[in-house]
């Protein structure tokens, strides 16, 4: 029984993908629209893209910007969020600023940033940075706020200074929440990466996608969508692995059947 359940769990994502592709294939055949290639046509176009050196360089350049933007955002946002969560004054100062930035789509800021910093890597990385920062700040903030006071008191009694308490108690205690924010941030990094390249066409995965769209190469467009989607799935899966390792101590028991199975 359990091995069957385990096998089902492992096979589930594969079935989901196959099901999605099949639905696409059927829908595309039914619609008979030039701008909606079948799943098979799109998949056939993938090797062409990945085999092309130019395209590969573009995609890697995108990933590099994304990695840099994500890394800087995490490094800045976690300390900021934690400080906000433990200090009323810091929270009171930053909260209004963040509330202003929060609802603005980060890509909408791009034209302005482009005026200041040009259409190069810096602009795109900055937009990714902005997109990732907010969820990470927010979750770090919430996580730090929820840290049990007595835990901090225990640390203080052992002689930890306030900085040590922030790094050695608040940070680990809030880590599950922080990593939830980082996971959202990672997906947002991918989204802002593509949109930034849509606005500032110059290089990157988004550039390939939107150029193909302009030229009516719809199989390439959809092949790029698959590639970007696959990148998202892989990044998320890798991140989830790391996350699960880091917060093993806090994981709730997962497989509690509701009523089925």
């Amino acid at each position: 029984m359990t091995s069957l359940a385990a096998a089902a769990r492992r096979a589930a994502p594969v079935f989901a993908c196959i099901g999605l592709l099949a639905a696409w294939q059927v829908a595309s055949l039914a619609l008979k629209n030039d701008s909606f290639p079948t799943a098979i046509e799109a998949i056939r176009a993938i090797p062409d893209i990945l085999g092309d050196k130019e395209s590969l360089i573009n995609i890697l350049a995108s990933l590099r910007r994304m990695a840099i933007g994500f890394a800087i955002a995490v490094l800045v946002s976690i300390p900021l969020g934690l400080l906000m969560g433990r200090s009323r004054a810091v929270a009171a100062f930053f909260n209004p600023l963040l509330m202003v930035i929060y609802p603005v789509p980060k890509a909408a800021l791009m034209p302005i940033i482009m005026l200041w910093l040009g259409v190069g890597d810096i602009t795109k990385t900055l937009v990714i940075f902005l997109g990732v920062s907010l969820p990470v700040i927010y979750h770090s903030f919430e996580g730090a706020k929820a840290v049990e006071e007595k835990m901090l008191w225990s640390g203080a009694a052992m002689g930890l200074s306030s900085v040590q308490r922030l790094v050695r108690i608040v940070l680990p205690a809030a880590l599950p929440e922080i990593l939830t924010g980082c996971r959202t941030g990672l997906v947002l990094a991918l989204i802002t990466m593509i949109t930034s390249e849509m606005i500032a066409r110059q290089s990157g995965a988004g550039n390939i996608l939107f150029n193909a769209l302009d030229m009516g190469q719809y199989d390439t467009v959809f092949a790029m969508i698959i590639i970007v989607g696959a990148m998202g799935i892989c990044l998320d899966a890798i991140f989830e692995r790391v996350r699960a390792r880091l917060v093993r101590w806090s994981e709730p028991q997962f497989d509690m059947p509701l009523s089925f199975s």
Partner: protein
Amino acid sequence: MKVVPSRSNEWVGPVTSQRPASAIIEIDRVSQVFQTSARKDHLALSDISLTIEEGAFVSILGPSGCGKSTLLYIVGGFVSPTSGGAKMKGKTITGPGPDRGPVFQEFALFPWKTVLGNVMYGPRQQGVRPTEAEVQSRALIEMVGLKGYENFYPKELSGGMKQRVALARTLAYHPEVLLMDEPFGALDAHTRTRLQNDLLNIWERDRKTVLFVTHSVDEAVFLSDKVVMMSKSPGRIRQVIDIDLPRPRRRNELLLDPRYQKYVVDIERMFDEVDDPGSRS
């Protein structure tokens, strides 16, 4: 002759010379007011004065909500009182420090650390070398009956086990004063008795000062030199009872001792008077 400071009106500053030779903690006219959510002032502690001698085992006994934990937090330096103050060895308490080790009602273990990691945390912070800290910590874990659980995370432990880890974690950094907030509250009767005996053994060996909050009269009489009886709304000291029973105390002897029985009966009666149902409704 020395003046008696706890009755004097001039209680300011860390005047070391005036403190009674053996007093380690002096609580002087402490009151604590809490703002409740309804924006009303709630007097949790009213005019508490208490001197605790070095090496004494003092229990605080009182009904739920009378401010026992709050008093402990003030001595720990986690909460500063609305008025009055407390001193440790003649120095005004302004914050927490490793000389006063708390064991909280809520355990407050570090969930990302294993049992061993939790117990080693204090010694490591104090600069004890890892190998040495580990040896000491393993011994403490064995003492509280958790041998074999060193690599378990707190979420994998029962309530009583967590409480024992919390006790071991605090003992591990050798505070001069132990501040224990119902440390045996979540334990079954058997483990409770065992840990009471262990605590007494440790205490009789090291003569640490212990401030021990409980609502078990038996436990208070069995362990203590002094029982502080508190009453509720506002939290006040109703009476301080010296427990004049010989040490070392053996449970099986003590339970049969008429003096022990009289203490328990007397204090239980006092408890009933203090916790009258009228004030609880």
